């Protein structure tokens, strides 16, 4: 079963970009959301992300990411909207609670930023092989391999832990636990006890990986040990220019 952050093989423009450029592009798009206060620019970044996802053949996945973020966004929106008291009151509620125009605008921007900033990182992970990230950081930026490997492993473990959790939930469901309850608090109460077995299996997996890496010369690796080269091509320059334009627009507006 494919997780939402697993690599999707392909040969699209995005897939063929240098991993370092993909990483930079993702961060530039994230930064664009935070340097602008314009809702439409942030919406534009979301649209750009969806267009990139479409070009890479992963639009469905991008929409699934958006949908899964929407619940959290709705919760954050509600929290924010009641706590910002500056601006003209749009709606007065009992107990001195009110919704203001500034509160509405800020909450909306906050939520849009969350959606727009999460998408590029998700897309980047979907079109980049996990091992390419540490490798390119070592070869192109000179980062010590041990640190780069830890970063790559942390990214690799996100979908693995999700799978592990799904497995534990399936086992509990088979024993009669009903996780598909509509009650949020009840669901949290059911999930909390599963953190212990997840932690145990995760630690075991990490330990196994560490031993395996050590037994295959992990500490012997140098900067020039890598097999793959990560050359820059014209498409990388184009992608970087595109990212720079998006950032410039965000700064200007």
């Amino acid at each position, binding site marked *: 079963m*494919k*997780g939402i952050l*697993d*690599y999707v*093989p392909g040969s699209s423009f995005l897939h063929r970009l240098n991993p370092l450029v993909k990483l930079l592009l993702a961060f530039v798009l994230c930064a664009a959301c935070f340097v602008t206060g314009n809702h439409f620019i942030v919406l534009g970044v979301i649209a750009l992300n969806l267009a990139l996802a479409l070009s890479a053949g992963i639009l469905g996945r991008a929409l699934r990411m958006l949908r899964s973020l929407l619940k959290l966004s709705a919760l954050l929106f509600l929290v924010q909207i009641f706590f910002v008291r500056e601006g003209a009151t749009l709606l007065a509620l009992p107990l001195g609670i009110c919704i203001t125009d500034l509160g509405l605008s800020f909450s909306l921007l906050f939520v849009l930023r969350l959606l727009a900033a999460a998408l590029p990182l998700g897309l980047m992970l979907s079109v980049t*092989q*996990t*091992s390419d990230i540490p490798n390119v950081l070592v070869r192109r930026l000179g980062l010590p391999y041990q640190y780069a490997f830890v970063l790559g*492993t942390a990214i*690799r473990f996100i*979908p*693995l832990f999700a*799978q592990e959790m799904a497995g534990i939930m399936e086992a509990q469901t088979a024993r009669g636990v009903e996780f598909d309850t509509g009650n949020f608090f009840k669901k949290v109460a059911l999930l909390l006890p599963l953190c212990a077995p997840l932690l145990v299996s995760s630690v*075991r*997996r990490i*330990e*196994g*990986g560490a*031993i*395996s*890496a*050590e*037994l*295959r*010369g*992990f*500490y*012997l*690796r*140098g900067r020039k*040990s*890598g*097999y*793959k080269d990560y050359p820059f091509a014209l498409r990388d320059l184009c992608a970087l220019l595109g990212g720079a334009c998006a950032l410039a627009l965000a700064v200007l507006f």
Partner: protein
Amino acid sequence: MIQLKNLGFRYSGAERLALDGIDLTVEDGAFLGLIGSSGAGKSTLCYALSGIVPHHYRGDFYGEARIEGMDSAEHRPEELSRVLGCVFQDIDGQMVASVVEDEILFGLENFGVPRDEIEGRVTQALAAAGISELRGRLISELSGGQRQKVAIAAITALRPKIIVLDEPTGELDPRSSRRVFETLKELNEKHGVTIIVVEQKIMLLCEFAKRLAVMEEGRLILEGEVPAVLQSAGRLEAAGVNIPRVTTLARALREEGLYGGKLPLNLDEGEAMMREVLRPC
């Protein structure tokens, strides 16, 4: 060559010894099968050979384990791994990459294998394990058996002098299990690689291994050529080890005075035995 002298180990906090005074010499080019019931100490012995014990798992360690002349207590696992490769039981835990090709490349890159040599080694290791078509696949999409083959290929690509495998066919069907053993046999006979393999599929092991070592409660109770070890059926059964059915049948026929030849270790030899027994006088 591997030399173990009075090797012992007790995991930190454990009451009993996981390894208890093991004396064993494994010559270059040997194919040794390691058998014993669960908890006999087979996996711990694999850890001791690779240096994981005592460097990673702490506890009381005594005696000596020399791997190609290197004392495992003095040399770190990464130094020992230049000559000894290991495939452990927990296959998923051993994976360090997301894609099959990257998993094979990992060790080769770490050891600084020249670039022009890497491609050949990856192709050869994948072909030997029968998984060439899986090269670009995500490991998370593979079956347990396929992952097991990837783990084996990742080690064989490094071409160590010694390969230690802890139940390498645990998740494989009979056909794939045989293929793994055939690969090990080829490495052993054509390339002179020393093979030490822990295995529960005793019939398969007896067919391919040249020698057997039997463990019970941390001790090495028997070691020798396969037919000689199988002669001690009583001790093997007491140690919780099954012996091949054809061997059991041969022993029963011997006790009845119906057969006096060598102990059969596989079905072909069993068939030959039965032909001899049933031949009209």
